[in-house]
């Protein structure tokens, strides 16, 4: 099942939070949804679920509106905020109420509590839960009805390393089963390990929508160190490739593939001391993409 967002826009008061965003989330992979604080991630996710009403645009699940399904919870499960429950309730009670809507009962709730490592606290009041426990419960809630689509807003916030790893493995396996998974995060290292595809949003606009590999390599630069650097740069300049920075016999180049430089150097018999890709981490790519779209920046 794939989710299609068509021209989604949303204002809060006079502020445009999501600006004509269109994208598709495909099945069989984990899609990471990235963006600076206030970029419109949560708003977009809520619009996907029909919880926030878009000013314009629509959201379709396999071409259908979510309200047209007879088993909505089996279509999409969600985690939006970790502590959205009555603190006097227990995980069992909370999940049971949710499960009951679709005719599921205590057996299913037990299964999910075991799966998410909450079996021991099944009958404890949730008020005393840590953020991590709340996240586990939120994930349990999302998985409850065996949904085809998962929409998780910052699911690894507050989880311990074991929990982070569990979420990563679980999401990858669920995607491998053919499910559609959209997960937002601001932890780039985590995202680069978990996601197959990345959608970047900044100031309400979709800035990138591509496989992780494309995003990372497309924005990478190449560092080259050579005693014949001036000649090399001159040659590259004729192909309109400029050095981003230059220091001594080392230059950092963008807009050219590393293989191409190697090829040129070999043809012209330039000596290379070093030829390496740099800045190709997801974090660098992300910072590049969102440089102009950061709402709250340090040092401003």
């Amino acid at each position: 099942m794939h989710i299609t967002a068509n021209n989604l826009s949303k204002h809060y008061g006079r502020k445009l939070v999501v600006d004509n965003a269109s994208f598709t989330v495909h099945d069989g992979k984990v899609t990471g949804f990235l963006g600076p604080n206030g970029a419109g991630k949560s708003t977009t996710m809520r619009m996907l679920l029909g919880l926030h009403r878009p000013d314009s645009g629509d959201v379709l699940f396999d071409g259908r509106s979510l309200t047209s399904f007879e088993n909505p919870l089996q279509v999409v499960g969600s985690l939006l905020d970790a502590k959205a429950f009555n603190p006097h309730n227990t995980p069992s009670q909370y999940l049971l109420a949710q499960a009951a809507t679709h005719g599921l009962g205590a057996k299913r709730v037990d299964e999910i509590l075991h799966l998410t490592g909450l079996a021991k606290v099944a009958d404890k009041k949730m008020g005393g839960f840590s953020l991590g426990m709340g996240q586990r419960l939120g994930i349990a809630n999302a998985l409850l009805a065996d949904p085809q689509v998962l929409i998780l807003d910052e699911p690894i916030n507050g989880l311990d390393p074991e929990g982070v790893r569990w979420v990563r493995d679980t999401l990858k396996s669920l995607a491998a089963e053919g499910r559609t998974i959209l997960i937002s995060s601001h932890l780039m290292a985590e995202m680069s390990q978990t996601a197959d595809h990345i959608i970047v949003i900044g100031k309400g606009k979709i800035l990138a929508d591509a496989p992780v590999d494309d995003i990372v390599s497309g924005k990478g630069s190449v560092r080259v160190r050579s005693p014949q650097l001036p000649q090399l740069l001159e040659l590259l300049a004729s192909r309109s490739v400029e050095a981003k920075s230059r220091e001594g016999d080392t230059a950092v180049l963008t807009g050219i593939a590393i293989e191409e430089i190697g090829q040129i150097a070999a043809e012209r018999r330039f000596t290379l001391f070093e030829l390496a890709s740099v800045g190709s981490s997801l974090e660098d790519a992300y910072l590049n993409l969102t440089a102009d779209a950061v709402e709250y920046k340090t040092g401003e």
Partner: protein
Amino acid sequence: MSIAAVTSHDMTPQGTASKNGISHVLPPIGKTRLTWSGLLGSEWIKMRTRVSTYWLGGIGVIMMIAMAIASAIQGSNGDVSADSVMVMATGGVVGAQFCAMLLGVFTITNEYRTGQIRSTFNAVPKRLQSLAAKAAVAAIASFVVTAASIVVSLIIAHVLSGRGLAFGYFSPEGLRMLIGAPLYMAFIAVLSLMVGAILRKSAGAVSIVLLMFWALPGSMVILPPSISGIVAAFLPSTAGAALYGLSSGAGDQVFSAITPQSAFSLPVWGAFLVLVAYVALFAAIASVVTKRRDV
């Protein structure tokens, strides 16, 4: 692959991830469906797992029975009619309606306060279905608890007032009160729930309902006497009293404190229609805002 293989890893969640590509991370389930019975069941679970439900139910029942005991003891010296006993048994509604009101408000505001409403609307994207289910459960709970309290109060009032357990000769008037009181409680629960759905905050919703049921009747004195009685008859508290109270005579002192005395009164069916109109009005507003709003 089996479910057992997965659940055997219960305490080590990372062990549940599939390694061989065959096992399911999530134990699969068959095809499910969102149904009205499921929805009502879900709302019932939420209601009975809220602490406030028990407080409100307990206080309401105690109020009903205490009122029956107090008025039966007062009335025990004279010759007591069956209708008078019914008045004793239903008089507690005047106080207990406060409980139905809070029950109704909390049914919806509790979810908005905690944010659980988002989970609810994820499972029930047609939000009005959820609102309807909440209203139905609040109404049924209020009706059943009130009806049960009245039956108990009736027995107590019979015994204490010296009539003994001589049932079986209820007048249409008596039956009307017997059904009218629980009906009124269900009405106030639903009306309050709709106000809660509109305002989404407990304090605001409770204030509005209190204003409608207590402040408005009290402020009728500012109107000229010629019209105050007519206006008052259309207030929800007065219309409600026409359902569960004695339409004329001795029983009236119970709620005369909150409803102005007047020569004008609606017939029972008229009062019922007034209440239906109030619920319809607030339900319509609640439906529009519930459907439109971001949660």
